[in-house]
């Protein structure tokens, strides 16, 4: 064992390695990405790791290996599970031989996602057992247990963490490489009655799965991470400590209120400063729900507050248990308005909810929400009371200074000015093209959807010029089938692929167009042009978006053609290149028209001291020259596009592995 300061996702990866994982596949997505990257970086040499083209592919690769007895891990974010749901739903009916853990990172908030879906609910729907870690250390240990459960019961299991666990950091003791479990897969054993899904097998296995989950509910009632903290043993206890076994009789009698919680919320509950007489249940396996343990927890209680994020999973489960056993315990939570229905919980939200729940027995509640309640409106004396601040800056995320996507969007916008158009966007950095002043994203739904949406709009209003924007990684992940659909079904739309030669938003992972794998191996690139031509597209043009005039002309020419046609805007992500020359404004020449600032919205373009003329923040400028090309009086010069970018792209895995991944810092 040795001590390391680890991100939750790094701890999960090291836990999987310690459990002897043989194969890891996944698709990047915040907040899950670092798990697979850490496996790649800390690979003892015998683990197969890949970035799959999408989550469905990753799930199937992991399932195949697990059929052959390998321990496998597949990683994704919550919306990625939607893509992988087809194989997962069926896989549960077939089962696995080697332990298989499906790591899904949920994003309450959401901070970087389209939805606030709860993978605990998904697990229930898919009948797949779910593990829900509460801290970095808990996650490290729990994932090793998850592999054991998976293998023992022959089922894939979901390991579902949320942002605060995935991206929290802790110093913790982890195993040395020599202590890792050595798992030698037996190999695939042919048995068509086991591995081939047919209706007859499905109905038989369905019953077995339901019975197994009943059994697991009992097993999980004994699982030490599902725990009741009786009031007297709760004081001074910290998440991740050895579990105290002190089921004290006096608590059973005296205590009338309970709090049921999970994940990061468990820490918020323990850290909240209430000291009323309260019993706590932490649910580490929301499915199958540890019913027996819940019964023990509910015994003698009048009311329970459920503190959880996303869906009211525990709240529903406890309500069910109360109904099933005829218990007169009031279950409160999201459904009763005690906690918010959406968004991420904070310490304050949890503390205030608990405070209101415990009422007069505890200290005064603090914070805004509690202030509405006159009984608890008194602010604690030590609070830092501040006057109303000046208007805070509004900072929606924006495209980076010099981002080639800005140039691509601006070229399309310029070329199509005055025409009836729709710009269907997609998931990735280019979603940020919706921000003012570009305003080039009319729709955004899910990965690859822009192409189908554009097609649907075309079939409904054929006089609109329909554009579908998609990124390079997204094109491979889910754009190809949509393109074939649009082409075969006679749509008229322009497919615009914004190819920055990396998966940028999630931190620069390789994809089939980059000619590189996550383990740094150089491989044959998959050519987007060839794929599009093979589909049958007659017009496929590739252009450098940083050549503004050429880009505008290309868009005009291509968009005027009938049918499905494609433009590939190819220029590497600025995080993968080093600027060679930065642009400067010649103040004497600048007429202060503001066009560059107003039209491009580049963070490097700011107003000068006089509040009129443009100035360039050289710490941000990448020398993309787009502003130079649109300045009506030629007042901006000095920028130089980096033509050696392609070499740098090769180095992307090293860049990504740098701890200072914000890039700008201490370059």
């Amino acid at each position: 064992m040795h001590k390391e300061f680890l991100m939750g996702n790094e701890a999960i990866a090291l836990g999987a390695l310690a459990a002897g994982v043989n194969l890891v596949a996944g698709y990047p997505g915040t907040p899950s990405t670092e798990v697979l990257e850490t496996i790649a970086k800390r690979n003892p040499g015998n683990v197969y790791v890949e970035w799959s083209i999408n989550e469905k592919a990753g799930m199937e690769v992991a399932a195949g290996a697990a059929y052959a007895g390998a321990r496998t891990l597949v990683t994704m974010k919550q919306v990625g599970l939607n893509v992988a749901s087809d194989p997962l739903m069926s896989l549960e009916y077939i089962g696995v031989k080697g332990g298989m853990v499906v790591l899904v990172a949920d994003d309450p908030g959401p901070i970087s996602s389209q939805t606030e879906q709860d993978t605990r609910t998904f697990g229930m729907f898919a009948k797949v057992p779910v593990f829900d870690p509460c801290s970095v250390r808990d996650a490290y240990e729990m994932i090793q247990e998850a592999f054991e459960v998976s293998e023992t019961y022959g089922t894939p299991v979901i390991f579902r963490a949320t942002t605060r666990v995935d991206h929290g950091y802790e110093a913790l003791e982890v195993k040395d490489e020599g202590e890792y479990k050595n798992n030698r897969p037996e190999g695939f054993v042919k048995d068509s009655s086991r591995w081939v899904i047919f209706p007859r097998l499905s109905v038989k296995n369905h019953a077995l799965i339901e019975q197994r989950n009943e059994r697991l509910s009992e097993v999980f009632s004994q699982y030490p991470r599902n725990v009741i903290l009786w009031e007297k043993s709760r004081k001074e206890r910290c998440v991740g400590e050895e579990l105290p076994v002190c089921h004290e009789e006096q608590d059973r009698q005296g205590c009338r209120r309970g709090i049921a919680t999970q994940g990061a919320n468990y820490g918020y509950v323990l850290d909240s400063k209430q000291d009323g007489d309260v019993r706590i249940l932490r649910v580490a396996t929301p499915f199958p729900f540890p019913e027996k343990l819940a019964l023990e927890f509910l015994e003698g209680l009048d009311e329970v507050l459920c503190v959880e994020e996303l869906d009211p999973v525990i709240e529903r489960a406890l309500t069910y248990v109360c109904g099933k056993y005829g218990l007169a315990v009031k279950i409160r939570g999201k459904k009763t308005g005690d906690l918010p229905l959406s968004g991420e919980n904070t310490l304050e939200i949890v503390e205030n909810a608990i405070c209101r729940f415990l009422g007069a027995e505890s200290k005064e509640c603090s914070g805004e929400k509690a202030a509405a309640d006159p009984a608890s409106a008194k602010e604690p004396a030590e609070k830092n009371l501040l006057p109303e601040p000046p208007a805070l800056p509004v900072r929606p995320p924006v495209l980076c200074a010099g981002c080639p996507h800005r140039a691509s969007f601006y070229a399309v916008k310029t070329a199509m000015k005055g025409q009836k158009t729709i710009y269907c966007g997609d998931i990735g950095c280019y979603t940020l093209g919706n921000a003012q002043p570009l305003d080039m994203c009319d729709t955004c739904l899910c990965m690859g959807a822009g192409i189908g949406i554009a097609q649907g709009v075309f079939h409904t209003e054929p006089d609109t010029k329909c554009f579908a924007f998609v990124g390079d990684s997204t094109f491979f992940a889910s754009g190809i089938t949509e393109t074939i659909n649009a082409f075969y079904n006679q749509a008229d739309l322009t497919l615009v692929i914004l190819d920055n030669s990396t998966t940028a938003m999630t931190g620069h992972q390789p994809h089939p167009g980059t000619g590189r794998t996550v383990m740094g191996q150089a491989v044959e690139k998959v050519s987007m042009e060839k794929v599009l031509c093979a589909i049958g597209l007659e017009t496929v043009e590739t252009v450098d978006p940083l050549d503004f005039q050429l880009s505008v002309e290309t868009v005009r020419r291509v968009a005027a053609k009938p049918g499905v046609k494609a433009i590939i805007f190819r220029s590497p992500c600025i995080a993968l290149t080093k600027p060679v020359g930065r642009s400067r404004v010649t103040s004497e020449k600048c007429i202060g028209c503001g066009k560059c600032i107003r039209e491009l919205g580049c963070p490097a373009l700011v107003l000068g001291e006089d509040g009129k003329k443009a100035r360039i923040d050289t710490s941000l400028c990448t020398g993309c020259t787009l502003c130079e090309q649109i300045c009506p009086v030629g007042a901006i010069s000095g920028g130089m596009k980096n033509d050696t970018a392609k070499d740098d792209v090769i180095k992307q895995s090293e860049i990504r592995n740098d701890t200072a991944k914000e890039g700008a810092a201490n370059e």
Partner: protein
Amino acid sequence: MSKNIILCGVGGQGTILASRLIASAAMKKNLPIKTAETIGMAQRGGSVFSHLRIGEDANTPLIAKGTADLIIGFEPGETVRQLPFLKKGGAVVVSSRPVMPVSAMIGKSTYDANAMLTYLKENVEHLTIVDADQAASDLGSAKTLNVVLLGAALRSGELGLGESEIIESMKERIPEKLWQLNFQSLNWSS
């Protein structure tokens, strides 16, 4: 000793590295440490923050409002945004240099950075304002603002860590060719 520290700024300013340097310095002193960071979409020019809890067995890395000992602000407006987390009598180290949001540059929102600094002066007892432009011109680089601020935080006495531990962590996390610049940056405000 236990310290709650918040680092805040705008995505790309280097808050994560600064947070990492503090964390590894705390580890060298064998202090328990938990941190939480903003990673993902918000890194693209959005508001970012790190919470660090050092030296106490905290159950969560998140810091409750009114309990931070120190805020290291990379940007005036972002520092004001986080100010409700500062405890009464807590310290603030802030860079004077605003990062103008694109929305303000194109007239869709307003941002008065001087009003932010005035607000901080009026409401923070232990305030250190770091003249970031001066630092950048003295050091010949604007890229080490994070280390300049870290140095000022050290001297505020609220970091609870020594210079030697910070320097040791810097040596581990920063390439050797940049050591000299970073050591100068650390000492710039002294």
